[in-house]
């Protein structure tokens, strides 16, 4: 089975769907006679389809209508092509995962009413994205390689797992600091993903900039990853990938390893 890369170039993001075969082993043991045990190792090859959605460019990946449309299409595509062993990893290039809604775009509207409209428009566009991610028929992993603020943080938290760089980047609900309220679905998302009341208060009512290690302690579901330097992900070429990926480094590769773990753990979803 050939690994197959289908880059789907869209404005501001790329989705690469890579599939390959993974060698997995599990052993069964059969009692042949009363004092003999034979152990069989079954080697099987499972198809693993990992979808890597990357927010490209070195900017702060603001969630404006154009990016959100691309995101919506990308998720739709991923969903349509999903198989029993699919997973999604969402990540970004550059210093930012996403800095939230495109406030500059909103503010460049003609009047105060038009500014308000643009803001509400983005709020309305983002809500189905969150819904799409939550209902995606596969495990989802946000590999947060940079700052994730406001709606950008919500984007990360819409994933089942959040991996962060241990050395850089924060999760940050910036709204209070810039004098904005949240939409109700932001609150619902934080409430469902952040376990402790004190942590929810610190995130929402104190606009705390949460680093990877703090996020761990404070029950915001993240896992530390070895320091994600750059963009180490490489397709290992045609052939069969073996587990665990021996040179796995970096946040994205951690996400991938997570994917391998999930798949070998037998997690499969019926689309």
């Amino acid at each position, binding site marked *: 089975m050939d690994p197959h890369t289908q880059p789907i170039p869209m404005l501001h993001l790329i989705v690469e769907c890579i599939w390959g075969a993974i060698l997995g082993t599990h052993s069964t043991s059969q009692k042949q006679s009363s004092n003999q045990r034979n152990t069989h190792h079954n080697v099987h090859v499972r198809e693993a389809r990992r979808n890597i959605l990357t927010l490209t460019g070195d900017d702060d990946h603001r969630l404006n209508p154009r990016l959100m449309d691309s995101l919506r299409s990308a998720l739709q595509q991923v969903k349509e092509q999903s198989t029993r062993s699919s997973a999604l990893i969402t990540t970004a290039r550059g210093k930012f995962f996403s800095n939230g809604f495109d406030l500059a775009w909103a503010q460049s509207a003609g009047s105060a009413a038009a500014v308000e409209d643009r803001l509400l428009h983005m709020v309305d566009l983002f809500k189905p994205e969150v819904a799409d991610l939550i209902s995606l028929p596969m495990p989802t992993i946000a590999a947060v390689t940079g700052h994730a603020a406001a709606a950008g943080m919500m984007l990360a938290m819409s994933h089942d797992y959040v991996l962060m760089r241990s050395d850089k980047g924060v999760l940050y609900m910036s709204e209070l600091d810039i004098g904005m309220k*949240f939409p109700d679905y932001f609150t619902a998302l934080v409430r469902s993903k952040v*376990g402790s009341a004190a942590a929810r208060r610190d995130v929402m009512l104190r*606009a705390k900039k949460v680093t990877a290690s703090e996020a761990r302690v404070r029950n915001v579901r993240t896992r530390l990853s070895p320091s994600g330097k750059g963009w180490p992900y490489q397709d290992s070429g045609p052939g069969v990938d073996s587990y665990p990926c021996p040179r796995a480094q970096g946040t994205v590769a951690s996400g991938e390893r997570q994917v391998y773990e999930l798949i070998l753990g037998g997690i499969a979803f019926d689309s």
Partner: protein
Amino acid sequence: MCSLEKRGNLFILTLTGSDEHRLNPTLLDAIKSALHRVRSEATASSALITTAHGKFFSNGLDLDWAKSGDPEINPRIQLMGFKLRSIVKDLISLPLPTIAAVTGHASAAGMIFVVSHDYVVMRRDRGFLYMSELDVDLPIPPWATAVIRAKVGPAAALRDVLLRSEKLTAAEAAKLGIVESAHDGAEETVRAAVRLGEELLRRKWDGHVYGQIRMEMFSDLLRALDFSENHVASRL
């Protein structure tokens, strides 16, 4: 009963006197008035610290005044419950950060009052937070459980507070995430509250936005606080 003073941009509400600060209608009305004043006098960046004199922060509703009888239908208990509920709603909608500086015991309704604040700092060497109801065979009204549920995080903590009637010291409460920090002595506790208040003020938040975010955060709780009003068998 209670005093309200202003130190810079910090409002300090103190339950005065060295008694148990039982939440009877008079004290509850005084607290409500004080909060009303805070709301109208609050400037762009303000914060509220609530504290108390003496050995008790508050030991709960004034059950002596209520006399005996089934708490579910006792009108005096219902009255105090109604007034406290109203104060909790005020605290949730208050357009400024709120800090409880717990300098003594806070039990039952007193603990509800404490955790209705955004932050709690507490005296380390004396005093408990304590939902005493289970120990004295009193049912907790649904709205009060809703307050605890909204403010006390992990399931085990909730269980220990409500279902185990744990007397929590400051250190224990800090571990459960209910209390920010523990301090030696009443004065140091209040000073810590002032420091926290000033730190929050430095963020220069819009009080109006702050209050709205808080109301959104606790929207479920606000609904639970309202529901009882329409409840026919009007328990607390």
